[in-house]
C-alpha cells in the first residue's frame, strides 16, 4: 500500500484515501472535431506502460478532492515526487536523478503562459 504525499494537504497519507486516474499529462485535443478517428482513438485509449519512471494522475478522493500528479518508478514503486496540476515533473525518463532547479522554474514559467491546458 502506497504512502502518498498530497501536495495540497502537504501530508503523507495512506493509499486508501486516493484514487489512481491513469497516465498524467494527457491533454484533451483543443479542437476534437479537427482530429482524425485515429488521433481521437489515440487520445481515448492508448497509454504508455513504461518500465521505470511514470507520471500518473491521482486524486485525493476522501481528502481534499484535489487532482495532482505522481512520478513513480514502476519497478521499485518508489514515489519520486508529487506535484500540483499545472506543474511539471522534476524527475523524468530523461532526468531520472531530477532536473536542475533552474530548468524546472523555466518550464513552470512556460506552462503558466499557456492558456487552458493545465493537464
Amino acid at each position, binding site marked *: *500500500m502506497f504512502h502518498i504525499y498530497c501536495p495540497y494537504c502537504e501530508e503523507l497519507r495512506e493509499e486508501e484515501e486516493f*484514487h489512481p486516474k491513469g497516465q498524467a499529462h494527457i491533454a484533451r485535443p483543443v479542437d476534437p472535431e479537427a482530429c482524425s478517428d485515429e488521433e481521437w482513438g489515440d487520445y481515448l485509449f492508448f497509454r504508455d506502460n513504461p518500465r521505470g519512471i511514470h507520471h500518473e494522475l491521482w486524486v485525493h478522493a476522501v481528502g481534499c478532492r484535489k487532482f495532482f500528479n505522481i512520478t513513480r518508478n514502476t519497478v521499485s514503486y518508489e514515489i519520486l515526487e508529487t506535484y500540483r496540476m499545472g506543474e511539471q515533473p522534476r524527475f523524468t525518463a530523461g532526468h531520472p536523478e531530477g532536473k536542475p532547479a533552474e530548468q524546472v522554474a523555466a518550464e513552470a514559467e512556460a506552462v503558466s503562459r499557456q492558456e487552458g491546458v493545465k493537464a
Partner: protein
Amino acid sequence: MSQSLKQPNRLREGGRIDRSHTLHFTFNGKRYLGHAGDTLASALLANGVDIVNRSFKYSRPRGIVAAGPEEPNALVQLGSTEAAQVPNVRATQQALFDGLTAQSTNGWPNVQRDVMSLVGKLGGRFMPPGFYYKTFMAPASLWMTYEKYIRKGAGLGRSPMVPDPDVYDHLNQHCDVLVVGAGPAGLAAALTAARSGARVILCDEQEEMGGSLLDSRELLDNQPADQWVAQVLEELARLDNVTLLARTTANGYHDHHFVTLHERRTEHLGETAPVVDDYRPSRSRMHHVRAGQVLLATGAHERPLVYANNDVPGNLLAGAVSTYIRRYGVVPGNRLVLSTSNDHAYRAALDWFDAGREVVAIADARRAPDGDLVAQARERGIRIIEGAAVLEAKGSTRVSGVRVATIDAAAFKVTGQAETLACDTIASSGGYSPVIHLASHTGARPSWNDEILGFVPGLVKGVHAAGSARGIHDLAAGLADGVAMAARALETLGMTSRAIELPQIDTRREGAACGLYQVPHEKPTLRAPKQFVDPQNDVTAAGVELATREGFESIEHIKRYTAMGFGTDQGKLGNINGMAIAARCLNKSIPEVGTTVFRPNYTPVTFGAIVGRHCRERFDPERYTALHQWHVENGAEFEDVGQWKRPWYFPTIVNGKKETMHEAVARECRAVREKVGILDASTLGKIDIQGPDAREFLGRIYTNKWEKLAVGRARYGLMCKDDGMVTDDGVTTCLADNHFLMTTTTGGAAAILEWLELWHQTEWPELNVTFTSVTDHWATMTITGPEARKLLAEISDIDLDRERFKFMDWRAGKVAGVPARVFRISFTGELTYEINVQANYAMHVWKTLFTHGETYGLTPYGTETMHVLRAEKGFIIVGQDTDGSVTPEDLGMQWCVGYDKPYSWVGKRALSRSDTRRDGRKQLVGLRPKDPAVVLEEGAQIVLDPDHPVPVPMVGHVTSSYYSPTLDSGFALAVVKGGHQRMGETVYLPMADGKTHAAEIVSPIFVDPKGERQHV
C-alpha cells in the same frame, strides 16, 4: 495407551520447559503428556511419535524435520470442535496448551496405515513431475472431475464449517524503526535504536524472544546466552518508546515500508480465545505498520542435505536437534549420525553426546576439518569420518541405519566403499540460507554470496538487514552488525545513535564450510532411491533433474513444473538445494540459475486475522436515509443499492398472510397509477453547482443544452464519457442563474462528483465553478399518482395550479410547515412532486403526508415498484440498461443530444467515429413476450432463429424485465442489434431449462406513450 503417557525422549533436566506444569494433549486420537513451554512438535518428539503425517503426493510416512517455520512435514489440523478447526498449523510453531487436539493433515484412514502409500511404494516411475498435467490433461472438460479426487487423495486440511467464535483486530501502527526478529542481531539493533530515542517496534514470531540465543552453547559475559536476552528484554520493556511483540510474525512486506505483523494473542492458551469475565479478547491482531526504516534481523534457515530416503522419520536438521535438546529437553532418538558440510552443525553431536546418548559418527564432507567445535567432538571421542557424507538412510517408518561413504562433491561422485552404520536418527546440515523472504516481498532480487554459500537479500531504500539475515552467522559479529545497521537506519532518519556496550564472547576458530547440496549416490539420481528436495511438495532431486532434461532451464519454470517451493512452504527448506541441483544438471552456477521470488505470506495467516472486524455487518458501511426508521417499523424489505439500504417493497398482511413480493409490487403499482404512492428517493446523488461559469460547465459535461434553462426550471440530462458512451443521467435544476442542483444515479453519486472535479481541475480550470455533494443534506420524498396534487395542496403553501407550476418546474415554499423545494419531475409517468426538505425535517414531513394521505390511498412503495413503473415508461437505468458500450443514439435518445452546441462537449467527437456510426449496433427496444404470463429473464440472450444450428448468432440481451399489473403482462427492455429497425419482428430467447420464449420487438414505452399523464 499407558505407554504413550510416558515421555521416553524427555531429559530429566535442562531446557526452558516447566516440568512441574504438565499438559494433556491429543494427537490423532491418542492422549499424550507434555509440559508448559513445549511446542506441539517438541511434545510429540518427547513422546517418541515418529510419524506425524503422510506426504502430499507419494503418501510416504513423514516425521518432524525442523523446529521452526521451515518445517515441511508436521502440518496438523487443530481443533476439538468444528468451530475451532484450523488447517495447516505447523506443529513446530504451535505452543502446547492443556487440551490441545490435533490431527495429521494427510493420510487416510490414518497416518500409520495409509491406503495411498501404495502409490508411494510403486510411485516414482509412475508419478514423475508434471504427472498430473500429463495424465489428466485430456479431455480438458474432465479436469474438474479429476481434480476433486486428486485433492481428496492429497488432503490439504479443511476449513471449519460453522462460524468462528473468535474476533480479530486490526491496528494501525507507526514507528521510526521496525526490527523484525529478536535474535542476537535484532536485540542489539532494537536496543541501539531504543536508547537513541527512536520509536521502535520489535517483533518475533516465536513464543519467546531471543532466537538462536535460547538454545546457544555460547557464553555472553560469561553467562548463559539467555541471561543476556532477559536483561535486554527487561530494559526494552521498561522504555516507553518501544513496543515488544512476541508471537508476532512479519508476514508481508508491502510498498513504502508497510509491513503487516500478525500477532497471535491467545493461540498458546487454547483453541479459541479464553473467555474472561464474559469477555472474549481478540484472538489475534494484524498490525499495519508504516515504518520509517525497517531492519530485517530474520536470521537464517539451515539447509538439509539431499540424500537417498532423506524423508524417512528420524531425519532432522542438525540445528533442530540442538534446539530440541537445549530448549525443550527432548532428545529425538538414541543413536545419532550427523552429516555436515560445516563446523556449526557439530553442536548437534555435542549436545546429543552431552545429553548422554550415543553419537555413532559424524560424516564431514570436508577433508580435514579443524575448527574448535570439531576439536571438542574429537575430545569426546566421537568418530569423525572425513570427506564423507550420508548417501542413504535405511528404514521405512523410522531410520534404522545409514550408508556412509567418502565422496567427491565437486565431481558429484562417490569415491569410497559405503559403510553401513546402525542408528535411529540422522542430523544433516548443508549450510545456512539467510531468510530473505521479507526483503524479497519488496521485489528486490537477492544476490549470491560465495563466501557464505547463500543468497543475501536485495534491499530497497530504507530497508536494512543485519546478522544472519545477511550472512553474518558468527555471534559476536552478528551482534555488532545489529548495532551498526541500527546506526545506519537512525542516520537515515536524521537521528543520532547512541552506542551500546556489547557482551564479551569468547572467539572460536571456525573452519570454512564446503558447498554440498545433493549428496552423490552410487546410482544415477534418476535410479537412486528418492532424494527429497522439498518434502512438503514431494519434489525430488530426480524431479528437478527430469525437469531440466525436459527443457525447463529457468528456475521459475522448474519451480512451476515440479511445484518446488509452492504453497505454504514458500521455499524455506528446499529452494537453494533445488537450485543447486538444477545448476549441476544445466552446468551453470547457482546465481546463473537465479532465484525465485518469495511472496507473502511468510507463513500462513488465518482468514480471520486478515479480515479483522471487517466482516458481517462491518464488512461495508451501511447508509440509511433519514426515513429509515419508518421503513423498518412499517415492515419494508430492503435492497442494497451501493452502500444504501433502500426499501425494496412494503409487504402488508392480507388475511393473516404476508404478501409475496409479486403481490406487494402489484398493489404498489396500482396505487401509483390509480391513486398516489410515495417513495423515499433521498439516496439520489445531489450535487450543488455554483459559480458564474456553472451553466457553461453543464453545457460541456452534458450531451444536451443548458444555455436557455430558466430559473425555476429543471431538465433531464445525459452524461457521456469522452468515448461517447453513456455514464450517468439525472435531472438538473436551475436554482439561480449561477446556481444549479444536479441529481445523479444513487450508485454514481461519488464517481460523478469526482468526474466533474476531474474535468474542472485538469481541463477547464479557467471556469469559475464549484461542486459540493449535498446528497445527505436533503431528503427527497416522491409523491406520485393522480391524487398527488390534492394531497400536497393540503399541507403546502405553494401554488400548485397546473398552469403556474408546470411539469419540469420547481418551486420553493413550505411543506408541512418546513422550508422545501418541490420539483415537478416524474420517473413514473404520473403526476409527481419530489419534495426536498432538510434531512432533519424529513420524518416530520413524511408522517404529515401520511396523516393527510389516508383519504387519497397514499401507499409507500419501494425500489422494485419504482423499477416496474419506470420501465413501463421506457425510462432507462444507467448501469442496468446500459453497460459502458451504449451511446445516447443506441438508446434512441437523440432528443437529448445537442449536436450543434458550440463547445465540443464530452463525448461528442466519439459519436462520429466509424464504430459509433456503424449499422448493427445494439439498440434499446421493448420486448413483449407472446405469452403474457412469461417474465423474461434479465440477461437472457436474444436470437432471431431458434432452429439455427449451434452456435446460434446472438443479437442482443434483455436488460430489464418485470410483470406489469397495468398491462397484466410480462414486458422487458432489451438491446438488440439494429433494434430500432426491427419494430414488430419476433425474436426468440432460448433458456437454460430448454424452453424457448418468443417475444415481439416493440417501442420501449409501454404505458402512456404520449406522456399525457405526467402533464395533468
